[in-house]
């Protein structure tokens, strides 16, 4: 539990050390890290390949922004709208988990892959409410004041990191891992595996919904990209490189990967004036990592260090 505190302290120092424009991006990276760390709970700890994490990011974001702008006839304040996002994400998480977690392995992966697409379609079908392809803006006035954005992201990510660590180190967390390692064995030991899988899925989804809602107040706009496959892939990338089943790995590599994508890779491309999409590099890295060291860079490095010492 020392690590989150160190994280908080370093984050606070950076607040005074960095210019505002980079704080904005860094804050984004911190919120993104929450997504990859919470994804890890289902995939790394409970062993269920969930490709639909962005469903809940988008859901949280849309629920919050529709409520706060009053697009469906009534409006709520910011806190209530975030609370509703978490609640609705949790409810959909339970309901969907109960249906889909009966399936295993690839079946579950496929079904969860479809889920964000269904929700994304709702945005187009009811475009007068959800703003269609290009979403809508909640307006400068409803958002977090610019000077508070970074502190907000820091505290949010600190809280979520701590929460996740508490969960995985608890007895519940042990049972998640027991299911991942051997589901039959876990069941024979009297663990109700389905219930625990649903619990893990729901916690993870609620966090995604919470982060999704917060993102809207951070960046002021909501759009279907929050359901998107690009975001999902970035989550996978960060978690896989960071090492599944470690929380720390996905979390800190979430920050690093995000900053790499947003700041560094594009800068390199612009300097060598190559008109390539920055995504090409990410995909290439992803393929190589997954083939060469599917257990993740962080874990691999640790084991190499172990061997040499």
């Amino acid at each position, binding site marked *: 539990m020392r690590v989150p505190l160190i994280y908080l302290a370093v984050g606070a120092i950076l607040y005074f050390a960095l210019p505002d424009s980079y704080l904005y991006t860094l804050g984004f990276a911190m919120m993104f890290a929450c997504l990859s760390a919470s994804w890890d709970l289902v995939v790394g700890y409970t062993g269920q*390949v969930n490709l639909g994490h962005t469903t809940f990011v988008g859901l949280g974001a849309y629920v919050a922004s529709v409520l706060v702008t009053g697009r469906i006839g009534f409006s709520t304040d910011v806190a209530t709208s975030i609370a509703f996002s978490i609640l609705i994400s949790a409810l959909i998480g339970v309901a969907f988990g109960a249906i889909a977690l009966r399936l295993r392995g690839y079946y579950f992966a496929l079904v969860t892959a479809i889920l964000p697409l269904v929700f994304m379609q709702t945005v187009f079908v009811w475009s007068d409410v959800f703003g269609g392809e290009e979403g809508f803006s909640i307006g400068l006035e409803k958002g977090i004041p610019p000077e508070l954005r970074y502190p907000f992201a820091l505290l949010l990510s600190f809280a979520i990191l701590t929460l996740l660590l508490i969960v995985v180190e608890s007895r519940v967390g042990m049972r998640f891992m027991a299911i991942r390692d051997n589901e039959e064995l876990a069941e024979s030991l009297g663990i109700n595996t389905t219930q625990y899988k649903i619990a893990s899925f729901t916690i993870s989804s609620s966090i995604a919904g919470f982060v999704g809602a917060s993102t809207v107040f951070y960046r002021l706009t909501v759009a279907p990209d929050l359901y998107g496959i690009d975001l999902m892939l970035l989550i996978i990338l960060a978690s896989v490189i960071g090492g599944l089943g470690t929380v720390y790995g996905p979390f800190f590599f979430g920050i690093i990967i995000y900053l790499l994508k947003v700041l560094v890779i594009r800068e390199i491309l612009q300097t060598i004036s190559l008109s390539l999409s920055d995504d090409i590099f990410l995909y290439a890295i992803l393929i190589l990592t997954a083939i060469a060291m599917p257990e993740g860079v962080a874990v691999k490095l640790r084991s190499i260090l172990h061997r040499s010492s």
Partner: protein
Amino acid sequence: MISVLIFGAVIGGIWALVASGFSLIFGVMRILNFGHGAIFVASAYMAIFVSKICYPLSLPSALLVGVLFGLMFYTITKPVRENEVAVIIVTLATALLIQQILLSIFGDRGLTMQPLLRGVVNLFGVRFTVMRIFSIVIALTVLIALEVMMRTRFGKKIEAVSEDFESAMLVGINVERVYIFVMVLSSILASLAGYFYVQIFSVNPELSLRALIYAFAIVILGGLGSVRGSILASFIIGYIVALTITLLGSRWSEFVMLLTIILTLIVKPSGIFGVEE
């Protein structure tokens, strides 16, 4: 009504080619190839490119793309076959990589090619392009040929591998060779679908994910690993799309399709013909 019948069949026929291959790979190799849609699109682009130089070569070159991509996906998934997450990542990232490369070569705007057959036929008072009818015929022929092949000795070998690859290995079947064959065959089916798709419609790089989504929807509906189920499901999906366009309007088409999938899942999680893993 007749128009819905034909339009649904065309959509269904093309997606059946894509989905049956997707499903076959899973059935035999137990992996999901998220790059299946990329093969579909890349072949279509190849056909367009070659058709400008020499039209008759466009079909063979499209199929060649299928063969090469099949081999490529076989190679890159081989080292990680046992690891579900890694397989998904590798194939999905490769698909997106291919999509980005196509984007930088051909641009975002759709491209199309002259259809193989021109003209319009009048069926029961509704006009259709000959190409649509022809593609239904070809799709059905290929799917029947696939059925027939599965009954030959080689087909039996494939079935044996898909049921239990360890025992298959023990009785002397070269499992890796069967895997390569299945991968290439499935990719060729996707290529063929891409070729016919671009005859009627046009392609852009984004289509690769769209094709993948259709394949997902179809195999979930038809049952993962069941080729017959996915063929049936393709036509069901085709008719759902055509009917929704006619009755509700175009914006609903994909939503209704995906909703059907979710509802199917609630009732029968393993799909119409699916077997629990």
